[in-house]
């Protein structure tokens, strides 16, 4: 497959994520849209890694290239997991204080 298809798929997923962040008011759904955007970027990184590998294989059939990009994706997943745990704790605390997860109620940074 050419790299173009992967780029357009990742762009579509990322844009859906952006539209979701802008339209939804539920904090949990906004958070999930952020996860969707992270995944779109991960998919694009893996596709570029394999494109790089293909270019290296064309020169030397035994070459292994593009490992760094996949490790980068791995670290993005690590950071996303840490981010989700803290973010959900913040959402739970917000729900406990104002009994809602609507971000419109949070526009003053205090209660």
């Amino acid at each position, binding site marked *: *497959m050419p*790299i*173009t*298809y*992967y780029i*357009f*798929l990742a*762009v*579509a*997923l*990322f*844009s*859906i994520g*952006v*539209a*979701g962040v*802008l*339209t*939804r*008011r*539920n904090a*949990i*759904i906004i958070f999930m*849209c952020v*996860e*969707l955007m992270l*995944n779109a970027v991960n*998919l694009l990184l*893996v*596709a570029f890694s*394999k*494109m790089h*590998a*293909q270019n290296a*294989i064309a020169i030397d059939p035994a070459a*292994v*290239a*593009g*490992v*760094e990009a*996949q*490790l980068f994706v*791995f670290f993005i*997943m*690590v*950071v*996303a*997991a*840490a981010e*989700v*745990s*803290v973010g*959900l*704790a*913040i959402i*739970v*605390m917000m*729900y406990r204080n104002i009994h809602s*997860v609507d971000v*419109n109620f949070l526009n003053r940074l205090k209660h």
Partner: protein
Amino acid sequence: MEITQILFWFLSVLAVFGALMMVTSKNPVYSVLWLIVVFFAISGHYILLNAQFLAIVNIIVYAGAIMVLFLFVIMLMNLNAETEPQKNKWLKIAGVVAGCSLMLVFVAALRQSDELLKAPVSMGGETGLIKTLGKTLFTDYVLPFEISSVLFLSAMVGAVVIGKKGD
């Protein structure tokens, strides 16, 4: 049409459809389930690209751990469709238009440089195997790996401190 092309289109349509359903679902539980569908489709793409390690990590970490955490939080809060209040309709339209415009800008910027973008993506190769990735991770990238454990520890402590009841 080869089998990989058919699989590619099937997984792409599944991912985009799941993402759209995730954004438009009224019930947050359905949103989480559609997002799990998207994650499985993306894992399928990883398998198609022969990035087997990332495919299985994506399923275990995202679909297995993170989405269960989301589901638990939603069920603890007892959210349903009525709790999200009706808001300005124009704001919703503006958000959709902004998202579409972003996509339009990306597509318009990318379709110019077409000979660069015809580069093929390797469907085989040894790049995505656990052996190759693990060798690099534990030699060249062992310091970021250890630092990420500290990051996890601090995230754990932070989640407990923030989520603790009391004042």
